[in-house]
């Protein structure tokens, strides 16, 4: 397509969705996943659909291609697709298994999904999966198909396309897999690209690259992009227009400037507010007096190393201290060894060298790394863990009271005192004690994480290791959870080791932060210092890749890139 031509049809509407309603019949009645949603998609423009989990944004996207999972079905409304030659089709009227809608899928409207690993077949070569759309829609020869796939792989910047084409998905990293997905979506030059949380499962730096790529391809192909996300930072970085959804309904729709700087709707305001809140340090932490630097540390880790049997050195000579009442943030990308390090502190993994000196309540110190099994049992009562996945870390066959009571029972508590303590703990984390007989599935994600916290603080620990404790939560719940953790910290004098990949969460609650990269701590210091004046290039790259929730200051496009190999070389070998 020539530039002049794309100029003239700049504002042309490709897809017009009007009063879309998609319902799921359930045993208890009709669940209205999408309830009267309307929007337009224009050529070359990006519409972001935002909302919390369960808001119906994903079902909206799937309704367009009629690939809603059973038993969902489009109940009413229209989805008008306008082609380049002026012909129009109402996709909502087509038969979901019919030939017509299949001709639209992948050819005119393509889609990429959240989890690039499970959204691609593990037993088919990526070349075959990318080229499949070409075979279905154009029936071109194997040879031409391969040529086109190689060209697509080059477009999405996958290194060495000639060998990559015959590889399988599990041989790629998460970011590369998402590039494969994008190549697959672009195969037939679609007019519309629907991206359903395409960067949620990725690290911030990888996310920045994928967002860049999508933007670049959108420009060169003149596509309309429907981008679904729950991350307001991403919205601010890429959106032209925004659609805010809540419980299947559109709360607000407008240009990105208006949504961020002059939101009309209360829900939107709340959403923006909870994002902006996480852009600063928590208020309760601004006024708190500093912990004196000469306080004897609660946890003093020196030269900790841990190598997996595969030979991977996950933790490499890590030293850090945690003072009483302090929160130490550990930040890094996936694979940086931060989770492994956290687990080494509790001896879930056996570190091979170093010391982990833990100061007991009576003032004596004990080395966790060499502690015997009975000493370890005692230490683990004072040092506890909160996990990332609030679903997987709670037994589905136990009631909430049983889950919370477990560490107390192990400590020898029983009968009436146990019941009272459970009720007290539930109140402390903001759960109704009357819910004690319910099972975890009856709770929402945020409430489940509260159960996990109640379990962790049950035996009055002194140190809690929180591994990505808020990553699975929606942004509005995230700040609530952090506030709860800080409240408990002040009440109980707790210390936290807070492991996260999310810099805003670290900035919000941590006193000090350590940045991990490939098993090593590359930088550590006061949070303000590290965030505002990073000393290491990797920290700078990490910070600059974080989407900025302000559409007036889009920055990931001009982010700083860190290249470990280049940093190690005194002079770059090639540009």
């Amino acid at each position, binding site marked *: 397509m020539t530039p002049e031509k794309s100029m003239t049809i700049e504002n042309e509407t490709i897809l017009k969705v009007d009063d879309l309603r998609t319902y799921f019949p359930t045993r208890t009645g009709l669940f209205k996943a999408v309830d009267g949603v309307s929007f337009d998609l224009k050529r070359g423009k990006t519409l972001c659909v935002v909302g919390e989990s369960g808001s119906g944004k994903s079902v909206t996207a799937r309704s367009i291609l009629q690939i809603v999972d059973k038993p969902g079905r489009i109940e009413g409304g229209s989805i008008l697709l306008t082609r380049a030659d002026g012909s129009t089709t109402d996709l909502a009227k087509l038969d979901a*298994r019919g030939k017509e809608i299949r001709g639209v899928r*992948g050819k005119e409207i393509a889609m990429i999904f959240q989890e690039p690993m*499970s959204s691609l077949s*593990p*037993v088919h070569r990526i070349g075959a999966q990318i080229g499949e759309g070409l075979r279905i*829609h154009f029936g071109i020869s194997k040879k031409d198909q391969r040529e086109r796939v190689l060209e697509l792989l080059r477009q999405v910047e996958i290194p060495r396309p000639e060998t990559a084409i015959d590889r399988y998905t599990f041989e790629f990293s998460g970011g590369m897999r998402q590039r494969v997905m994008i190549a*697959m979506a672009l195969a037939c030059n679609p007019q519309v690209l629907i991206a359903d949380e395409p960067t949620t499962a990725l690290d911030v730096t990888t996310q920045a690259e994928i967002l860049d790529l999508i933007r670049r391809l959108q420009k060169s192909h003149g596509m309309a992009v429907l981008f679904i996300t729950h991350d307001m930072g991403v919205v601010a970085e890429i959106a032209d227009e925004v659609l805010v959804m809540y419980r299947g309904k559109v709360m607000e729709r407008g240009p990105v400037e208006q949504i961020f700087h002059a939101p009309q709707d209360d829900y939107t305001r709340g959403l923006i507010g909870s994002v902006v809140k996480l852009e600063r340090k928590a208020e309760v932490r601004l006024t708190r007096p500093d912990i004196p630097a000469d306080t004897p540390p609660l946890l003093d880790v020196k030269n900790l190393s841990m190598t997996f049997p595969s030979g991977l050195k996950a933790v490499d000579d890590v030293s850090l201290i945690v003072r009483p009442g302090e929160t130490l943030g550990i930040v890094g990308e996936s694979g940086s060894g931060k989770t492994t390090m956290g687990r080494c502190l509790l001896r879930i993994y056996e570190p091979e060298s170093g010391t982990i000196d833990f100061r007991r309540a009576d003032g004596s110190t004990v080395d966790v790394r060499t502690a015997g099994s009975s000493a370890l049992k005692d230490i683990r009562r004072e040092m506890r863990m909160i996990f990332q996945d609030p679903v997987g870390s709670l037994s589905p066959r136990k009631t909430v009271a049983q889950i919370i009571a477990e560490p107390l029972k192990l400590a020898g508590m029983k009968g009436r005192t146990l019941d009272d303590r459970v009720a007290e703990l539930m109140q402390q984390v903001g759960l109704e004690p009357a819910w004690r007989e319910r099972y975890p599935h009856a709770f929402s994600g945020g409430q489940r994480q509260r159960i996990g916290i109640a379990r962790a603080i049950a035996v009055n620990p002194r140190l809690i290791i929180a591994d990505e404790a808020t990553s699975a939560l929606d942004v509005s719940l995230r700040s609530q959870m952090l506030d709860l953790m800080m409240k408990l910290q002040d009440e109980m004098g707790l210390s936290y080791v807070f492991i996260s990949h999310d810099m805003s969460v670290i900035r919000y609650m941590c006193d000090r932060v350590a940045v991990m990269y490939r098993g090593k701590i590359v930088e550590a210091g006061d949070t303000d210092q590290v965030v505002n004046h990073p000393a290491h290039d990797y920290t700078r790259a990490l910070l600059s890749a974080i989407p900025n929730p302000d559409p007036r200051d889009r920055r990931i496009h001009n982010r700083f890139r860190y290249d470990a190999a280049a940093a190690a070389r005194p002079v770059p070998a090639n540009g």
Partner: protein
Amino acid sequence: MLRFLAKRLVFAIPTLFAVSIIAFIIIQLPPGDYLTTLLADWASQGGAVEEGTVAAMRERYGLDQPVYIQYYKWIAGILMHGDFGISFELGKPVTELIWGRLGFSLLLSLLTLCFVWAVAIPIGILSAVRQYSISDYSATFLAFFFLAVPDFLMALSAMYLMSAWFGQSVGGLFSAEYVDASWSFGRLVDFAGHVWLPVIVIGLGSLAALVRIMRANLLDELSKPYVTTARAKGMSEFELLIRYPVRLALNPLISTLGWILPAVISGEIIVSVVMSLPTTGPLLLRALLAQDMYLAGSLILLISVLTIIGTLISDILLALTDPRIRLQ
């Protein structure tokens, strides 16, 4: 891939060794030996046997020696000369008795396996895709019905039906005139005319397990995100089904091959006795009853070898079909 194969073969050796010992011990477990069985037989027919004769026979068969010496002699004979020993009861070398029958056993097993897979996979697919429909329920019901019916009863009913209603000769794998004939086109046709009935009878029993495995696998796969991805490419539902979920659902099925093969062979014993098939099953049963230890031991050993080969084949097939196993 070659290294993987070599490794698997090396691992098979200690397994076989252990199996041979266990087989030998199990055969020795019942009180007495072949001669006590023989004497009891003679006594029941009113014959009296002199003590000297018994001792002489015991010495001749080596039964007076400790068990481990007997085992050593047997296993050394197999390893050194491929000599599996002599069948006491039939007075012939075990090898001679087994080979012909083993061929038929294997052929029958393979045919049964093909039959079961060819029937179970489509039925499994159908009942997964149309979950909780009439066809799902009827397929499941039939599969479980055949699982529940004892195979000898199935064999008897099938034979009765065939001979009473269709007047076909049943039992055996050949008509009388072809039993001892050499292979010819006519014999092949005759074989084909006979073999399908035992294949169906043996196969129906193991059908249910495979249908259910296929159904459960496919139900898991059908809800995977890659199915949605493929659908979003514009693929037709049928092509999608065969190309993606079915392809992945087959992998766990392939790994069942390892235990399906021995199950078919052991399930065949009773059916073979009822339908008088010239396979190893009836021979093994007779050898065990008579405590004919070399014959029984050799048969158990061979069946174990088949099991190990079956597992090996399924491992190789799995490595071929699933790159995750091949490359990781």
